[in-house]
């Protein structure tokens, strides 16, 4: 049985980035700005790693804001799943930010730093919150920073991508807000655990309407079919660090978490609605991987690939089985790390070869053999080849589905893996084919040293190491998933702490 600790210090994970983001405009020196952002992101990552360690030992952390206890007040809830996802989001974000130093400087840099910090904060807040209106506010913070970051290159592609993302993202916020209005009309409260308690005895017609509204709203954010038309355009038009941020699935991971939390814990949907989510996720997977086969722009190809992989994760999380769910969470982490590394190496290669189309990368093995080799290894890891950890997660998703007799889903996943292998091999063939003598001179003034690849090599070795401990890792993720899908434990953990907070006094906890 897990305990709940009421501790107010984790609110710094939300407050510190906000304070730093607005204090950045007071600092004039660029290295100090960059250092502040990097230190804030590393602080968030390490603190959430510490909370994850505590949650693994059975102590979940609940932050009670201003001493007003849960049914009435605002609270943040750091369980195993949420602290794991916050750790992933902030760690990946700090790696991307560190690597963005090596690229062309985004002008104006102050605004890029502020927006990058705010989008990380938004994604973190979506995962950490226990209150429905805070969820909406953090969703909007992440979305608005996303709109601005997508249009950061002031060229034709960037502005077009940004306005497309903005219009469709506004639709998502409208649907989520109508859903919140209906929930408030039905239950009279905005605290997620309290809503979960009160919706147990609610009318099923209202629950279906709320389910549809939230599915549309959060589905636009998590890029489910047919709500993902904006996503490939947004990834192509954005500058490379921002594309890496979107494509490794950090805001999408927050979307997956909120989908799981609102659908399973708060609404408590039944088998029929879960099967709707499974159908949508399976069709996203198949269609995205299929479209990725015909792409010639590598950024767009990776965009479609990311959409498909996160749909696979949603598929695995919705089946309700502990083995499949745990493997799905592992797949989310693997995919985020591999996609991140692929994008950063793609930036490296594109600088040397002069462009991001597939044709530009022809013959890259001659110009930078080491980077091309690591790139190829990461592509194989993404598909799920052993000995990388992608193999473990995909294998256990497929066997978990097979043992529950979901044969159609197994066929869909295998078919989409077949598509993945096709486009991965196409990229590898282009990389290793003889170079064509073109007058397309690479960008000579910006050079990325091969030494920047070293952290990625360490990451690759780490994933190989993770494959050897796969049983322990999968058992851990099984427990994470079981805690995530346990509705009554969520309600009890948050609502029953009232007595202990009143007796010790929440103000004393903060001191």
């Amino acid at each position, binding site marked *: 049985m897990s305990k709940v600790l009421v501790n107010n210090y984790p609110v710094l994970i939300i407050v510190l980035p906000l304070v730093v983001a607005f204090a950045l405009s007071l600092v004039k020196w660029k290295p100090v700005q960059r250092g502040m952002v990097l230190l804030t992101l590393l602080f968030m990552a390490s603190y959430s790693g510490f909370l994850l360690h505590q949650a693994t030992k059975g102590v979940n952390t609940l932050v009670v804001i201003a001493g007003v206890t849960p049914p009435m007040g605002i609270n943040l809830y750091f369980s195993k799943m949420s602290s794991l996802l916050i750790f992933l989001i902030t760690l990946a974000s700090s790696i991307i930010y560190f690597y963005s130093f090596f690229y062309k400087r985004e002008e104006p840099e102050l605004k890029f730093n502020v927006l990058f910090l705010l989008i990380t904060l938004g994604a973190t807040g979506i995962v950490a919150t226990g209150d429905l209106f805070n969820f909406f506010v953090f969703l909007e913070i992440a979305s608005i920073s996303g709109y601005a970051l997508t249009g950061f290159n002031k060229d034709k592609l960037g502005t077009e991508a940004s306005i497309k993302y903005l219009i469709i993202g506004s639709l998502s916020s409208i649907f989520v807000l109508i859903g919140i209005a209906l929930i408030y009309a039905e239950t009279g409260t*905005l605290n997620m655990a309290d809503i979960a308690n009160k919706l147990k005895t609610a009318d099923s017609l209202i629950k279906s309407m709320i389910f549809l509204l939230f599915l549309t709203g959060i589905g636009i954010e998590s890029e489910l079919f047919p709500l993902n038309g904006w996503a490939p355009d947004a990834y192509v038009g954005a500058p490379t660090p921002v594309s890496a941020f979107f494509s490794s699935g950090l805001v999408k991971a927050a979307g997956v978490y909120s989908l799981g939390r609102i659908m399973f814990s708060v609404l408590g949907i039944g088998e029929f609605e879960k099967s709707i989510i499974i159908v949508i996720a399976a069709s996203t997977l198949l269609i995205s991987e299929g479209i990725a086969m015909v792409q010639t722009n590598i950024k767009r190809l990776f965009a479609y690939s990311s959409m498909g992989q996160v749909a696979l994760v949603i598929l695995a999380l919705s089946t309700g089985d502990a083995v499949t769910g745990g493997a799905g969470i592992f797949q989310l982490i693997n995919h985020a790390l591999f996609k991140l590394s692929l994008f950063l190496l793609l930036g490296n290669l594109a600088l040397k070869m002069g462009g991001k189309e597939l044709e530009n990368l022809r013959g890259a093995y001659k110009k930078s053999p080491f980077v091309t080799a690591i790139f190829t290894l990461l592509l194989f890891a993404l598909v799920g080849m052993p000995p990388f950890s992608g193999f473990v997660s995909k294998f256990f998703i497929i066997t978990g589905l097979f043992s529950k007799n979901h044969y159609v889903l197994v066929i869909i996943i295998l078919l989409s893996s077949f598509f993945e292998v096709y486009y991965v091999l196409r990229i590898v063939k282009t990389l290793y084919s003889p170079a064509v003598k073109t007058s397309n001179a690479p960008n000579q003034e910006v050079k990325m040293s091969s030494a920047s690849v070293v952290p990625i090599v360490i990451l690759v070795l780490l994933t190989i190491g993770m494959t050897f401990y796969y049983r322990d890792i999968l058992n851990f993720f099984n427990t994470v998933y079981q805690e995530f899908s346990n509705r009554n434990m969520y309600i009890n953990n948050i609502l029953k702490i009232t007595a202990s907070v009143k007796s010790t006094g929440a103000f004393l906890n903060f001191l």
Partner: protein
Amino acid sequence: MTELVFYGGSFLLIFLGLFIALMKKNLIKIILGLSVAETGVNLLLISIGYIKGKTAPIFSVKGLTPQSMVDPVPQALVLTAIVIGVAVTALALSITVRLYKKHKTLDVRKLKNLKW
């Protein structure tokens, strides 16, 4: 009975706003449609908190008790939602200005640089 007017009106506004956002081809009209839809949602949120015969939740006159006020929680929600709507509309219009400078058109049918 008057609550039906509020609910019906807000859903009508949302429907109209979505209709405008889907059917119009001029980018500024699309953004206006989104703004109308957000206004409809805010109206829906406030009318959920309305109790007949009660007054605004501000302690303006001495002796006003919380029992004679409408629900203040949706009003806090709507304040936040209005601010967010204003920010998104401002961002949308500034991107539209830059888009007009680059593409020389506001017709969404002509934004075809990113295909497939």
